[in-house]
């Protein structure tokens, strides 16, 4: 991916990691279209930055995605990067019969969302020089947080999908995975101040530094996520799963959850 002068579509760009990265890409010379469900959040995120544009989008709605893709390509014909960042996370108790709506929404947004947007924009991106697709997964793709089963599984799915996508699009579109550790955002209630999570600005700075490298690493991994990313490879999966489970419970408790 170019280190400046890109035109980037950032989904979930109105808050959290999407917003923080949109600001950094903008400030180094990229044009960024931030898309999301909440108009007020998008406007706030774009404030004072002239090359940040906003478009509302709900990736859960297939018809809306198709119409959105047509419009974004018409309005921004230089679009060369799709940054699939939108995602939701919920804690779920699987021990009894329950409402599946959280799980269904997580699958629709975290898995089908990137697949739909990639499908809708692939023809355009394939014809662009320096085209790239970035998918945001999670350290939990590699070692699940057992309290968030569908979220963790959705990220494992998108990690796998990204590996396949990279192979299928080789030579046409660069495919990059960004796997964050726990970052202080509003992804789950209380998380923005949860102790032990990485501060958002520190995370975004570390990620921006890796996006400034040529070539871009195929997996963008900050030091804080290696504990999860390398667990299986380093033969400590079971131990890491246990540590993560205990640590996450303690952090949520300490954070007032």
């Amino acid at each position: 991916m170019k280190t400046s002068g890109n035109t980037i579509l950032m989904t979930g760009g109105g808050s959290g990691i999407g917003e923080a990265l949109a600001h950094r890409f903008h400030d180094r010379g990229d044009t960024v279209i931030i898309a999301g469900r909440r108009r007020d959040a998008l406007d706030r995120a774009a404030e004072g930055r002239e090359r940040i544009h906003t478009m509302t989008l709900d990736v859960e709605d297939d018809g809306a995605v198709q119409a959105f893709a047509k419009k974004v390509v018409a309005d921004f014909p230089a679009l060369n990067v799709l940054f699939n960042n939108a995602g939701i996370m919920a804690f779920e108790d699987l021990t009894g019969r329950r409402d599946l709506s959280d799980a269904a929404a997580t699958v629709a947004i975290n898995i089908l969302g990137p697949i739909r947007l990639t499908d809708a924009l692939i023809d355009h991106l394939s014809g662009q020089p320096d085209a790239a697709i970035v998918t945001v997964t999670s350290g939990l793709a590699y070692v699940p947080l057992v309290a968030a089963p569908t979220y963790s599984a959705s990220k494992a799915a998108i990690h796998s999908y990204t590996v396949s996508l990279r192979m299928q699009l080789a030579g046409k579109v660069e495919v990059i995975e960004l796997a964050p550790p726990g970052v202080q955002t509003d992804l789950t209630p209380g998380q923005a101040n949860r102790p032990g999570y990485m501060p958002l600005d520190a995370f975004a700075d570390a990620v921006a530094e890796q996006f400034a490298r040529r070539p871009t690493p195929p997996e963008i991994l900050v030091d804080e996520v290696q504990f999860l990313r390398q667990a299986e490879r380093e033969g400590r999966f079971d131990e890491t799963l246990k540590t993560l489970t205990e640590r996450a419970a303690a952090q949520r408790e300490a954070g007032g959850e």
Partner: protein
Amino acid sequence: MKMTDNTILVTGGGSGIGRALAERLHDRGNRVILAGRRRATLDEVAAGRDGMDTLELDVADAGSVTDAVAEIRDRFPALNMLFNNAGISRPEDLTADEWDLDLAEATIATNVTGVLRLTGALLPLLRAQRDAAIVTTTSGLAYVPLASHPTYSATKAFLHSWLQSLRHQLRATGVEVLELSPPYVQTELGGPQQATDPHAMPLDDYADEVMALLDAGDTPDGEILVKRVMGYRAAEREGRYAQTFAQGNPAS
């Protein structure tokens, strides 16, 4: 997992791995309910087998799951084992002019949502039984994807992750959570040619090896792994993920 005196629901039980294991479990004297979309196929498998019942079920259809669960509660209140085996697999070319998104949606609906829905609906019944178990079929492709089947591989990665969370959450309930990860086996999952592909493991060999592992209780961390899938299962752990991926996905 207990090997006799169970009442077992097998989804995708009309063919392939589901059928082969259902027949072996039935031969051991278990009561087996074969569930699937095609009534005629189910009836054919169950013909002449006492204690093998059939149930029409499309796990991708929420209404069908609701109806089936009501029928199970009514007809088979002793159900203590759910075998989530139904799954579909389709190649997808993301660079083709017409990339059909319906394939991705259908694959997720059956392989992911179907499992979540049926498991959620049957868990209260299972929890009330002694010796309850949930067995779910994933794939060696959960660990190293087949790039020509991106959504299929991703759905199996999903299930592998999700089963670990489920196993942890159910650890105090007595419901055992098992993952069955087949290698490439001679079934019709990928089309009729797969059933005779010499590169695929013969179905009977696979089913026999699975039964032997279950008999021996050889299911470390709840995983049922025949020797032939270990190349994929252990690829990351053994530091040869990239090599295994390249071998499984030769550049054309």
